[in-house]
């Protein structure tokens, strides 16, 4: 029980008449990698924003290490600083160099001194192999490099869990590999992660559990092995088949990266 990092309990969310989430529940344990996937518009991004209360759920609860988000006596900003977020479009701070993008959270939010924050930021950049680019502005970096800085920004906060919202889907195919590699690395080091992605190679090699969402509910959940050998519902089968058609070829190439890494 104590190794539950994140608990999502019966989360509901609607925008006007549109019911986006209809009762989503799952737990994420220490060092677990949870992969969430499903069709466009099924509410995956909304779910992640509910989890860190950027968009509070209409109903249901989120617990981070047993602390209920939205409680009047919990400081939501403080809790948010313990939940990392990596965005589809990176969302780096355009006016700050890579190092400052990473250091600003530790300095301004966690209250570290400028030197400590920069040191920590440098370590995080090294971790994602971006230390040589520390003095570059986001506009001077490729998409893959920007996303690795985005991951470093989350790592430097030393959070309890990191949420990823389709971190590679805005990247050119040839840049996806480096970001997936970084994610594989940190997953294997024991980072607790909730990853929305359609990169099935990634899911196959590091996911502890996969969750398929459609229409705002969990349609099916299980291990990668379960999904890739005997998915039950027709919707999942169709969806996986479509993914195969869309990304099959590049996916296979990438899977080799992932599998090579596993050996």
């Amino acid at each position, binding site marked *: 029980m104590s190794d539950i990092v994140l608990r999502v309990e019966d989360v509901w969310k609607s925008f006007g008449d549109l019911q986006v989430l209809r009762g989503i529940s799952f737990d994420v344990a220490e060092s677990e990698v949870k992969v969430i996937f499903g069709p466009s518009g099924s509410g995956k991004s909304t779910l992640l924003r509910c989890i860190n209360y950027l968009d509070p759920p209409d109903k249901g609860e989120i617990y981070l290490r047993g602390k209920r988000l939205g409680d009047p006596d919990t400081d939501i*900003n403080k809790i948010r*600083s313990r939940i990392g977020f990596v965005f589809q479009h990176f969302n780096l*701070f355009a006016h700050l160099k890579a190092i400052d993008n990473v250091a600003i959270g530790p300095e*301004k939010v966690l209250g570290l001194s400028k030197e400590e924050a920069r040191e920590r930021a440098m370590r995080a950049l090294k971790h994602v192999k971006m230390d040589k680019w520390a003095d570059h502005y986001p506009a001077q970096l490729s998409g893959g490099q920007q996303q690795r800085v985005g991951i470093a920004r989350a790592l430097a906060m030393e959070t309890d869990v990191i949420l990823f919202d389709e971190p590679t889907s805005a990247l050119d195919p040839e840049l996806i590999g480096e970001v997936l590699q970084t994610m594989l690395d940190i997953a294997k080091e024991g980072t607790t992660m909730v990853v929305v992605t359609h990169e099935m190679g990634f899911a196959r090699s590091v996911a502890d559990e996969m969750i398929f969402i459609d229409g705002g509910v969990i349609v099916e959940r299980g291990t990668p092995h379960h999904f890739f050998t005997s998915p039950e519902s027709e919707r999942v089968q169709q969806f996986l088949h479509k993914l195969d058609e869309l990304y099959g070829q590049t996916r296979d190439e990438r899977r080799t990266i992932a599998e090579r890494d596993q050996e």
Partner: protein
Amino acid sequence: MQGPDIPRLFAVIMERGVPAALQITFFGLGLGLLAGLSLALMRVYGTAPMRTFAELYEKTLRGIPVLVLIYIFTFGVPGLFWFVDPLSRPIVGAYVALGIRSAAYQSQIFRGAILSVGEGQVLAARSLGMTNFQAQVYIVLPQAFKIALPAWSNEYAVVIKDSSFASDVGVFEILKVSLNITASDPRLWLPAMLVVTLIYFIFTYPVTRYFGKKGGGMAQVGREIVWQ
């Protein structure tokens, strides 16, 4: 008969008129900056009543001629600036009038600039655990100021030109000083106006020229462009 002494005209107007013009511009722009930025933040992040207020403010202030505003703040409400020296009341009235009017335009400038920073960066800042205020101070405003620079330098040019309206309430700024000179010698009308034009040019063109090219190339918001 000798021709007008242009360098002397220039020197006199620079010395006696320009300080007041710059003072009006400085305080007018400054007041406009504080109020305009607040209005812009209200429009972007405020509650519905705040947004409505800001919008109404913009519409109203932009609908009133500058001169009318200046009259309101000088002769219109005589006791308004009871705390300043009576001799300074017209100039204070002028920069308050220009300031609250400029706020209506600066609000638009900053609103555009803030919006062009993009919601994604605000989300990223919030997800690091920054408060809304921190996200504004560390992330949005530094970028917004830079993006706003070209439009803002244009606003400076508009305000310094509009400071000439203060001549009507007796402030010794550029225009008033030259009018006084021509009153003593009508033959100086044309040379004096040429010198006035030159002075306004000197104080606007380099600034708008320089800053017009800086920043993020935001589409022009605010007022009609003075120089580019």
